[in-house]
C-alpha cells in the first residue's frame, strides 16, 4: 500500500447550541493513501461537508488534526483543491480565466496560467469554449470547467463535494467516466462525497459509510474491482454485493434515526 497522503486524525467537531452541545463529528479518523480515490457516503447531516471544510482549513476542528504528507495542516487554507456542488464559475470571466483562478491566486502570471490551461480545456471536452462565458455552457460543461479549475490548482489532494449531484442521470454517468479518466491522467488523491451509492462504488478504491448524530464513520468498505472500470462492471455480482452492503448500512442508519426522532 502506498504511503498515506491525507490523514484525518481523530477529528471531532462540536457546536454550542441553545439546546446544548451539538456533536457534528465524533472522533472521525480516515487515512487516504497517495493516489487513491476514496468516497464518503451517508445520510444528510452526517457531517460530510464539515469534514471537507476542516480538511480545506475553512473550519477549525474542536479536536484532532489534519495531516498532509505527515505535516500538520490543520486550519491552513490553500493546501487542497476543493470543489463544491455549485460550479461557482464567475460570470464575468471567460471559461479560461475561470479555470486559472487558482493559479492566479497563487501568483502565477496570467499568460503562463492561460498557456497551461488551454491544452487541458481542449483535451477534456471544452474545445471551442475557451473564450465563452459560463452562461453559454450546459450544466455538464460547467461542472467540467469547475473540476478543471480544481485540478489546475496545483495540489495533490482534491475534495469533491457532490460535484454531480445537480446533473441529470445521463450527464452524470458520462461525467463519472470523464472524472475517472482525469484521475488516471493526473494521479491526484481524491476524496469524494456523494449520496449516490452506485456512483461511490463505481469510482472508488474505498467507500466510507457515515452515520449521523453524531457524525462518524461506521464502516470502511474496500472496493476491489479491477481498473480501468467500465459501465459493465456495475452489473457484476461483486458490485451488487458491495452495493447491497452499503445500502444495508445506510438503511439501518435511516431506521435508527427515525426511531431517534420518534
Amino acid at each position: 500500500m502506498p504511503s498515506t497522503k491525507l490523514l484525518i486524525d481523530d477529528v471531532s467537531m462540536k457546536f454550542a447550541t441553545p439546546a446544548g452541545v451539538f456533536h457534528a463529528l465524533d472522533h472521525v479518523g480516515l487515512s487516504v493513501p497517495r493516489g487513491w480515490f476514496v468516497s464518503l457516503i451517508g445520510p444528510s447531516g452526517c457531517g460530510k461537508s464539515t469534514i471537507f471544510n476542516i480538511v480545506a482549513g475553512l473550519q477549525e476542528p474542536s479536536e484532532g488534526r489534519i495531516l498532509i504528507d505527515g505535516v500538520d495542516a490543520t486550519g491552513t487554507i490553500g493546501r487542497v483543491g476543493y470543489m463544491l456542488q455549485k460550479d461557482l464559475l464567475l460570470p464575468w470571466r471567460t471559461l479560461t480565466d475561470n479555470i486559472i483562478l487558482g493559479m492566479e491566486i497563487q501568483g502565477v502570471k496570467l499568460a503562463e496560467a492561460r498557456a497551461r490551461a488551454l491544452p487541458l480545456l481542449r483535451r477534456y471536452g471544452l474545445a471551442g469554449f475557451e473564450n465563452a462565458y459560463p452562461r453559454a455552457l450546459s450544466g455538464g460543461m460547467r461542472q467540467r470547467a469547475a473540476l478543471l479549475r480544481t485540478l489546475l490548482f496545483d495540489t495533490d489532494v482534491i475534495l469533491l463535494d457532490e460535484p454531480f449531484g445537480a446533473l441529470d442521470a445521463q450527464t452524470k454517468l458520462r461525467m463519472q467516466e470523464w472524472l475517472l479518466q482525469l484521475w488516471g491522467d493526473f494521479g491526484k488523491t481524491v476524496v469524494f462525497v456523494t449520496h449516490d451509492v452506485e456512483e461511490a462504488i463505481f469510482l472508488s478504491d474505498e467507500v466510507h459509510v457515515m452515520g449521523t448524530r453524531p457524525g462518524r464513520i461506521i464502516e470502511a468498505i474496500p472496493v476491489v474491482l479491477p481498473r480501468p472500470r467500465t459501465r459493465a462492471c456495475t452489473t457484476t455480482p461483486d458490485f451488487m454485493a458491495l452495493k447491497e452492503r452499503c445500502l444495508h448500512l445506510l438503511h439501518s442508519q435511516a431506521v435508527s434515526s427515525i426511531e431517534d426522532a420518534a
Partner: protein
Amino acid sequence: MTIPQTSAKIVATNTVATWTADATGGAASAKPARRLPVQKDWPTWAIVTVQIGILIGVIAFWEIGANTGFIDKFFWSHPSAIYHTLTIFFTTGDAFTDIAFTFRSTILGFLIGTFAGSALGLSFWWSKNYATIAQPYIICFESLPKLALAPLIVLVFGIGIASKIAVATALTLVVSTLTTFAGVKAVDPDGEKLFYSLGASRLQVFRKLVMPSCLPWIISVLRVNIGLALTGAIVGEFIASQHGLGRTIIYAGQTYDIALVWVAVSVLSALAIAMYVTVSWIERMLHRGVKG
C-alpha cells in the same frame, strides 16, 4: 398486419371524440366558450400622431383660453408669451450660463456621491463589526429628508457652486451606499469559500470576487442618481445662488414672470431628459461590459 390496427385506433379515437363532444355540448349551454382576450396593437404612426395631437390640443386650448380670458394670463401665462421669452432667454439672457452652472453642479454631485457611496458600501465588506456599528447611522441618514438640510449646507458651503454640489452629493451618496451594501451582502458565501480554499488573501477576495459581483448593483443606481443629483442642485439654487436654472425659476416666480418660469422649467426638463438618456446609455454599455 398494421392496417387493421390503425383502423381500430381510428375507430377508438372517433368514439372518444364523439363522447367528448357530447360532454362539452351539454356544458356549452351553461357556460359559453371564452376566448383569450387579445389587445390589438396600433401601428407606431397612429400612436405618434395621437401623442402629437394631444400636445397640440393642450397648447391650442391654453392659447385660446388665455386670449378669450377663460384662463388667467397672470397666473398661467400663455404659449406665445412663453415662446417669446424663450427666444429672449437664449439670445440676450443667461440661458447658457445657467444651463452650464446647473449641469456642472449636477454632474459633480452625481460623480462624487456615486463614487463615495459605492466605496463606502464596499468598505462594509471588510469588517462585520464596522458594518453593524455604521448601519443605524446610515439608515438614519437615509430616512432623513436630506433636502431639509439644504439651508444648512448652503450656510456652510456658501452661495457658490460648492453648496449645490454638496446637496446633490448628499442625495446620491446614501442611495449608492445602501445599494452597494446590499450587493456586498448578496455575495455568495460559497464563492468566498471557494476563494479561501484556493488560499486567497482578503484583498484578493475583495478585488476578484466582491468588487466584480457588486458592480452590477453599483451600475443599477446610476439612473436614479442622476435624477437625484439634479434635484439636489436645483434645490441648492433655490436657497441661494447667483446662477442656474433653479435660481432662474425662483427669481421669475418672485417677480411674477410666469412665462420665464415655464421657460426655465422646460429647459430644465430638456436637460434632465438629455442626462437621463446619456446615463441610461452608459449603464447599458457598462452592463454589457460587466456581463461580457
